[in-house]
């Protein structure tokens, strides 16, 4: 017995730690998916001048439990003639990437599952799998509405990945590292050190943040960029044929993606676990600041959904190809120029 204990607490500790983190991440994502749905419904209610769910439990706190039980109890039907393997694979493919992305994200100074040196690369490469999963789900459903939705998802997500990556490259030039924990550590010392306010390196940094936020909305297929599941046109889009927990998994994955996207935005631009005022930092307050910033962004995402109508499909693509990509290319060049400016000036004078 003590040999096992010795091993677990000694050489085997990294594996134990990883396992604990994975369990924690799954619990975090699960709880978020459940209660973000409630937050969204109540937020939507307040924006629409009605109370939102308030029947189950006190002020509706048991509503996600009720929803979960309902979804579990429904029959999961696989439409006849559809591709069974792809149909069952799509929910898995859409749920796994957010869970993996959360491994690299630092919640506190020492609270990161794996301090990966290429954390940024990991997050963005996994983010693209979302597209493939929706496309598979739509194609495998053998339903015209789902196929149209899959086609739209692919074109929309491909279009919006480009400005997002250009913006991230701009940020990489500023930070010089892909390690997410180091990026957060560079932003210490008060909110004026946060990346979003570093205008002496890139004068358009706040614009860069806004572009990143818009691209994150589009990548997670949230309104006003929800052409994929435009309810009033395509019934439920790529999810039309999924019932019961299959639909539940897609739903959870959407909120998991939002959580990951907002976490990444917090880490990259808003200082991660750093406190905006220098005091009140440390191993206890760090995660609290992180969660506060992340949930502020999530609430903004929810707020935007219930305020604007849906953009036109080609308007959405026009926005990306004709407006966001030129702006992000321009900021990239500008940042490069601004970073090399002292050197140039030194050589000139």
């Amino acid at each position, binding site marked *: 017995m003590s040999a096992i204990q010795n091993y677990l607490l000694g050489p085997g500790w990294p594996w134990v730690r990883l396992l604990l983190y994975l369990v924690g991440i799954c619990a975090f994502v699960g709880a978020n998916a459940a209660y973000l749905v409630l937050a969204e419904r109540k937020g*939507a209610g307040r*924006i*629409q*001048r*009605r109370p939102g769910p308030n029947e189950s439990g006190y002020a509706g706190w048991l509503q996600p439990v009720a929803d979960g039980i309902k979804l579990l109890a429904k029959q999961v039907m696989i439409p006849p003639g559809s591709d069974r393997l792809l149909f069952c694979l799509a929910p898995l493919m859409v749920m796994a990437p957010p869970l993996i992305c959360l491994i690299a994200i630092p919640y506190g100074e020492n609270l990161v599952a794996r301090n990966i040196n290429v954390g940024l690369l990991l997050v963005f490469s996994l983010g693209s799998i979302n597209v493939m999963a929706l496309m598979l789900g739509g194609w495998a459903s053998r339903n*015209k*509405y789902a196929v*149209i939705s899959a086609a739209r998802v692919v074109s929309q997500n491909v279009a919006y990945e480009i400005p997002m990556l250009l913006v991230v490259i701009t940020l990489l030039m500023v930070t010089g590292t892909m390690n997410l924990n180091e990026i957060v550590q560079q932003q210490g010392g008060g909110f004026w050190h946060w990346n979003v306010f570093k205008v002496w390196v890139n004068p358009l940094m706040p614009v860069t943040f806004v572009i990143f936020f818009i691209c994150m909305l589009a990548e997670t297929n949230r*309104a*006003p960029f*929800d052409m994929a599941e*435009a*309810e*009033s*046109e395509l*019934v439920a889009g790529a999810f039309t044929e999924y019932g019961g927990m299959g639909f539940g998994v897609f739903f959870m994955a959407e909120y998991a993606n939002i959580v990951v996207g907002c976490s990444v935005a917090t880490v990259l631009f808003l200082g991660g676990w750093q406190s905006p005022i220098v005091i009140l930092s440390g191993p206890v307050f760090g995660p609290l600041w992180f969660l506060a910033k992340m949930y502020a962004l999530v609430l903004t995402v929810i707020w935007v959904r*219930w*305020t*604007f*109508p*849906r*953009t*036109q*499909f*080609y*308007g959405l693509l*026009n926005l990306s190809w004709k407006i966001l990509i030129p702006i992000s290319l321009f900021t990239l060049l500008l940042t490069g120029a601004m970073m090399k400016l002292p050197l140039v000036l030194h050589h000139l004078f």
Partner: protein
Amino acid sequence: MIAQPEAFPTGESGRAPQETFVLNLGPQHPAAHGVLRVLMTMDGEWITKAEPVIGYIHRMHEKMGENRTWAQFLPNTSRIDYLSAMHYTHAFVGVVERAAKIEVPPRAEYVRVITSELNRISSHLVWWGALLLDLGGFTPILYAFEDREKILDLLEGLCGARLTYCYYRFGGLYNDVDDDFLNGTRKFVQEMRPRLGMYRDLVTDNIILRKRLTGIGPISAEMCRKYGATGPVIRGSGVAYDVRTIEPYSVYQQFDFKIPVYQECDSMARYLVRMDEMEQSLRIIEQALDRLPAGPFMGKVPRVLKVPPGDYCYAVEAARGRFMVRIVSEGKDTPYRIKLRTPSFSNLSLYEEASRGMILPDALAMMGSLDLVIPDIDR
């Protein structure tokens, strides 16, 4: 002058027919505004042919008219288009009064105008909320319904029904208005004006909505005339046709109101026509409240109503367009034939030609801008 959507082709795509597929916007669909089925032959996202299939809520009101007495048909009139029920009852009551030469006292006429215009506002509020719901804006419909609740409460206090009113009778009204209704209506008019301003600032001026509707679904004035489309559809195409001014009925000639007309022929023009109409309806209600004459609310009607033989018609400007009732009477106490000319039927008939070559979301936005109520089409 028709605005074009920017940078996206709307012509025929030139591909072979066997590469098209049929998408069934079935009777159960969140955007179908009721039980309307549209068979769309599509080439990718473009529509090559959109054929509406109607009849899913056909109740044969015209046959019911032949089996009932004149007064027994009154409740039917509310159910043809339940969103603007007052106008439809007005038309039927009007045609019988015209045929039987029944005099309606001025007080009743003014109250009919007030209730009709209130009904027009509530119908347009539903249209507005539903259009924005189609376009993905989930919030305005709840604000619109909040305003509509006030109208429904007023009318419920007046005649006991919230949706399918049966308030008018041959020769006047069911009962007189009381002070509660008059004061409540005045208060409502004062509260509604700032709300319309808020809707203009937050929704009409929203860039996303403007991009969704401007230049979408052009319908020329010539097409409107050939298909018989009336109401905001023809007024958004530059023709100032409103039954209240062209073929005046009731006491509308005594009021000072404008007919909003826009020249652009697109969905945004139809949208703006209806928003302006709500404003003008508030004006009419205010003038009618100020000038409401005292007197009886019911004229002299013979105990047994006999309509002289012959055929007669009466047209009103319902919320959706021109609604006309044509009756053929043989002098008996039941009609020989009742024909209901409903506006949504003619407005939808141009959809097949107008939506050719459009992309699916645009076609749905255009259908929303036509303001269809399917029971109105099917009767």
